[in-house]
Structures are given as structure tokens and as C-alpha cells.
């Protein structure tokens, strides 16, 4: 069975500082990995995904995540955060089928 563990429930950080949101997964088959972002009172939006190929994937707003198979991790990073990045971030894993399992979420709070 697949599972996703997000190691931090909340991450406070100052504006323009770097941030890393940690995600570990377990699966017995090949996986696809995702990060979703949820702004207050909204649904989840895809931030970035790893399906195959390069292990480093990037989003259009400066986030990146690296798939590390040996450590079964898919940590999300941004070198300089903005106030507008304040949101909840969900790591998710999907097998070669269609069922996606989500982590419990990490609340990123960017302070001025």
C-alpha cells in the first residue's frame, strides 16, 4: 500500500528566506509524485509533478522539488518566499493506476 508522510505540519518563515517542505513516501510500485497548493477557502491546485525523466521538477512560480528514489523523498523548495506563498501544501503519490494518496499537509506561513 502507498503512503505519504509530510514531516512538518506548520512551517513559519520570513519573507525572502528559503524554505523546504519535506515529503516522504512509501510504495511497492513505480510512482508518480505531486505537490498541490491550497489557498484559503479554495480547492487544491497542482503545483508541480514528477512522472519520469529528470528528477528535478519546477513550477512556474519558483518552487522546485527533487525526486530521490533511494531516500523515497520528494521535498519541495523555494529559494526566496513571498507573502503570497502563504498556503497549505500537500504532497501526493499515485501509482500507475489512478488512485492518488495525499499527505496530511504542511501549512506554510510567510511573515513580513
Amino acid at each position, binding site marked *: 500500500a502507498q503512503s*505519504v508522510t*509530510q514531516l512538518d*505540519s506548520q512551517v513559519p518563515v520570513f519573507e525572502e528566506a528559503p524554505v523546504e517542505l519535506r515529503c516522504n513516501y512509501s510504495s511497492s510500485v513505480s510512482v*508518480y509524485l*505531486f505537490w*498541490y497548493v491550497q489557498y484559503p*477557502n*479554495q*480547492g*487544491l*491546485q*497542482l503545483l508541480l*509533478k514528477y*512522472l519520469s525523466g529528470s528528477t528535478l521538477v519546477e513550477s512556474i512560480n519558483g518552487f522546485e522539488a527533487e525526486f530521490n528514489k533511494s531516500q523515497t523523498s520528494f521535498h519541495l523548495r523555494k529559494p526566496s518566499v513571498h507573502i503570497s506563498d502563504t498556503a497549505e501544501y*500537500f504532497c501526493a503519490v*499515485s501509482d500507475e493506476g*489512478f*488512485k*492518488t*494518496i*495525499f*499527505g*496530511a*499537509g504542511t501549512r506554510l506561513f510567510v511573515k513580513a
Partner: protein
Amino acid sequence: NAGVTQTPKFRILKIGQSMTLQCTQDMNHNYMYWYRQDPGMGLKLIYYSVGAGITDKGEVPNGYNVSRSTTEDFPLRLELAAPSQTSVYFCASTLGNTIYFGEGSWLTVV
């Protein structure tokens, strides 16, 4: 393009009442899902469907029912509402491995 549309956005139910959360998508996606989101718990899959006429249970199906008579619609029914069903419900559909979510339905059972 409306994407995934859920109604109602907010609802308060009394214990034992029943209701249906509506979900429709206009992207012709075969796969559709219902998730519930509880604080600190992430999203839990309630039911899913791989196409019209086909549904299956997810992680937390008890207390819910679904149907999928058309590709577009995937309603979620609560037959006997319980306080444990107070949650935020998200309908979603997929194209490939990317999930498209509705904006959520906030349900409170009192």
C-alpha cells in the same frame, strides 16, 4: 471552461437528515473522485469512478453513496448525517495523472 463544479458550497444538516452533494465536470474526464478534508488529516478518498456506470469505494466510504449515470455527473449522497461527517468535501476529476478539484463544499452536521 467551468472545470469541476460543486454545489452547495455551504450546508448545515441536522443529525439523521440526508442530502446530496452535486458534482459536474465539463472536461469529459472518465475518472472522478470524492474526497473529504479534515484538519491535519489531508484528503481522504471516499468514492471514485472510472466511468459512467462504474463506482468503487475509497479509503473512507462508510455513510456515503455515489452514482455515476453520466460522464459529467458524480453526486455524493449522505443518507443519515452524523456529526463525524462534518468536513469539507471536494469533488475531482483526472486527465492522466493530474487531478482537477472543485472549490469544495463545507458541511456541518449538528
